[in-house]
């Protein structure tokens, strides 16, 4: 697996529910080395991995994370309170989660509406670098909506984070997967991607995505 060419970032996906396998699949198609882990023994998700994400390897979470350049956090939000922050220390972490009380129930930790859910995730995972993306596209659309670069139909995804290097690294992965990106320079600005916001669930090319973001900020940040 080693060679002279610069290698693509290795990706570890935490979560084998609705979202995790969908992201793992498109990342593999884009040429990344991908591991997938759930809580506990990788044997429990071996069949899911083999059938739904051929080419990925199921591992214990700690092993998957250790070797990864980017970790995708795709666990149910209500399990986050019990998640061990030490596991992700020093890592770039994509937060795909949404706080959505009518569907997931009220989570005390995320009730402080002055902050977006990813800001709260960042505060808890203080030693990790959080990037917010993938939360505003349906996991079921992730494969179908991919388009090659330059396609007029190519959809944009927002990528937000406080660390510009991490945002760029993640955005490059997303562009390789098959989406344009609109990069925002803070997790706070990433609140615009959340449920009820102007781009949540919306399939928009880059210019329209930017336009949707630009006409909304005052209302959703006030």
């Amino acid at each position, binding site marked *: 697996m080693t060679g002279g060419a610069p290698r693509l970032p290795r990706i570890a996906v935490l979560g084998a529910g609705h979202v995790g396998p969908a992201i793992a699949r498109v990342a593999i198609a884009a040429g990344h080395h991908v591991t997938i882990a759930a809580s506990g023994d990788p044997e429990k998700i071996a069949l899911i991995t083999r059938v739904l994400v051929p080419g990925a390897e199921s591992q214990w979470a700690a092993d998957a994370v250790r070797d990864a350049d980017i970790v995708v956090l795709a666990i149910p939000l209500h399990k986050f309170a019990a998640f061990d922050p030490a596991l992700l220390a020093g890592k770039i972490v994509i937060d795909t989660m949404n706080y959505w009380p*009518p569907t*997931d*129930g009220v989570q005390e930790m995320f009730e402080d509406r002055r902050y977006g859910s990813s800001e709260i995730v960042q505060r808890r995972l203080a030693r990790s670098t959080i990037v917010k993306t993938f939360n505003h596209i349906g996991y*079921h*659309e992730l494969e179908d909506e991919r388009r090659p670069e330059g396609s007029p139909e190519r959809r944009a995804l927002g990528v937000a984070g406080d660390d510009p290097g991490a945002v760029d690294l993640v955005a490059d992965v997303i562009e390789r997967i098959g989406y344009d990106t609109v990069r925002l320079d803070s997790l706070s600005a990433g609140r615009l991607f959340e449920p*009820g916001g102007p781009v949540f669930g*919306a399939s928009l090319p880059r210019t329209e995505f930017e336009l949707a973001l630009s006409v909304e900020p005052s209302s959703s940040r006030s």
Partner: protein
Amino acid sequence: MGEPTTFPLVLGLDTFGDVTYDDDNRPLSHAQTIRNIVEQGVLADQVGVDFFGIGEHHTDDFPLSASDVVLGAIAGRTTRVRLGSAVTVLSSDDPVRVFQRYSTLNAISGGRAEVILGRGSSIDSFPLFGYDLADYEELFEEKSHLFAELLKGGPVTWQGKTRASLSEQDVVPHTESGPFPAWIGVGGSPQSVIRAARHGFSLMLAIIGGSPSRFAPFSKLFHQALETLGHAALPIGVHSPGHVAATDEQAREEFWPRYLEVIRHVSKTRGFAVPTKASFLHEIGPHGALYVGSPETVAKKIAANLPALGANRFELKYGMGGLSHGALMTNIELYGTQVVPRVRELLHERGH
């Protein structure tokens, strides 16, 4: 998908009991809506629909919380159509009581009862019955396990955290001829597919948005899980929303404004994206999840998707809040008299 499916083709209808409107566009009462559903179930039987399912909901716009009572009324006036839940929210119910209610329905209907277990996309039953949504996984795992034990018949011994334990408990009424069919409805969770296989439930794929073909790997996962566990093959079904009218244009025009209104309403509480006309047209096309059109259009789409998904059963979720009872009756009649025979013909032509 490996070997072709050997299970008989089943073509059914599901309703969530969406409130219907009168000719002046005013919502009918809950009571009238429920009486209309009884009429719809009876018509489904008369026009040759194989299965009629009712989903459990607990809201003002979906007032059908006691599906089994309505199914009992339909059972008393029909002889042929199979009757079941679509879905029963097992996590917030008592598996013993669910078994008793559907075993009773099975008795009334002469062995026509089925049950589809799942979460559904609404969660109103959790606070209503005092459950915490955060416990969903454990509730569903334990209760589906108990339900599988109950279905086997005979005294049940079971222990868990989510309800009282049972020791050599005889649960009545007994079924006459073995377990009635039970399914798990799956919306996109691979663990739910594995769970269905583990407990020996059939798999109902709820495809309500996006490309149906993305569910094909789930069918494969189900087959492989059954094989790994040493279980025999089990049927796979597909549940999707739609609307049938005389022409494509009429079906679209009747359905689209109601669909837009309902999803717009739901989007406020659940964060769904509000559909656009373009996204709607995509959903009713070959790569979308909705079956909206003339009998021929809908039949062709069903006949194309069932083999692609390794499925032998299709359930059209008809109705959308605001449509009239009359439009729904027409939908049911066209589905039974034209869609059902046409799907059979198309699949037969292809050697299924």
